[in-house]
């Protein structure tokens, strides 16, 4: 057999086998990967909304907002994912807010690639706990090197101001948007009652 025909046959055969095995692997893994992502998201909702036992999913304008309900089915607050750029890459944050949209109930970092030991401290509970009960009106703000005095302030991490500022910025920009979504959702709900 001449050499180019052999090259074509061998490469085609190898690619065919590679393709086939990947199809099988993908069919096996796809659903599992989706379930994992969903589960991670749900768990994060419970982390940022205290005393929530049930979560309802609302989808509006390609954005997902989770409604947190307590044991008696009463609305506790909302949770949502906000995303934006940090110091090195995208930071994804699950945020919980009370039902009046005035105070945060907690945040949890889903994804981040900040510098280990410095910016990565945004995932530590010391930093995250500052956001519990922080006021979002008019906006969240940060202070450097001293204790926060106002209810809407948090203290930036020493040596990681950019990462801290990014978190605050991401939260502020998404909260505005979420207010709109929730408002719409509420008006729809009231219409249904009438």
């Amino acid at each position: 057999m001449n050499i180019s025909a052999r090259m074509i046959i061998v490469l085609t055969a190898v690619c065919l086998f590679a393709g086939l095995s990947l199809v099988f692997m993908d069919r096996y893994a796809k659903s599992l990967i989706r379930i994992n992502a969903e589960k991670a998201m749900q768990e994060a909702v419970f982390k940022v909304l205290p005393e929530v036992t049930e979560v309802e999913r609302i989808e509006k304008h390609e954005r997902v907002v989770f409604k947190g309900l307590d044991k008696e089915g009463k609305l506790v607050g909302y949770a949502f994912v906000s995303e934006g750029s940090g110091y090195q890459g995208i930071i994804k944050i699950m945020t919980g807010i009370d039902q009046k949209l005035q105070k945060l109930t907690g945040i949890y970092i889903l994804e981040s690639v900040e510098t280990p030991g410095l910016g990565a401290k945004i995932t530590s509970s010391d930093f995250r706990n500052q956001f519990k009960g922080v006021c979002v009106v008019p906006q969240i703000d940060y202070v450097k090197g001293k204790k926060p005095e106002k209810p809407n302030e948090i203290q930036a991490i020493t040596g990681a101001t950019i990462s801290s500022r990014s978190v605050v910025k991401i939260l502020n920009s998404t909260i505005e948007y979420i207010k709109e979504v929730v408002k719409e959702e509420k008006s729809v709900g009231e219409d249904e009652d009438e």
Partner: protein
Amino acid sequence: MSSVKLYMEFFKGFWKDNPVFRQLLGMCPTLAVTTSVLNGVSMGIAMTFVLVSTSIVVSLIRKLIPNQVRIATFTIIIATFVTIADLYMKAKFPPISKALGPYVPLIVVNCIILGRQEAFAKKNPVHRSFLDAIGMGLGFTLALVLLGAVRELLGSGSILDYRILGTWFEPWVIMILPAGAFITLGFLVALMNVIDQRLRKAV
């Protein structure tokens, strides 16, 4: 061939031809993922899986592959196994997959794997290629665990997330940063050289 040699095919990957400390291959994942022991172990296992599977397949079809397209063929086979490993980890061990990030897909271009195909699997029978691959893979894993242990201990004061050094210990942040990887690797390679020279003198 004698059985002593077979035995050596397996063990050469640990010391004499250790891919990290001796051949200085695959430095990208070595330096990038070894911020902790767990990351090192997972990366090592993923890499061993790909290396062993690829070596077996390449060794099986080594007489069919035309010489001109051997690198392309090796790469396709490697990429297939890497994708399988990546999907499997994402499906079964999401936290580990998240910690390793882009370094699992990057095994495709890891020179240890392509190097072993060129240097060994394409001209040796299956059982030898298997022993060579598993030895190299475990040698690589061992090196990553060593690096990860030093960096995690000094950088976070813990091993496998279990706190070993007390609260008096101020973690050396530099050890988890890229610079720490280079420093640790340098010291470990030097240490290996010293031990090797001593051993040779003793013999």
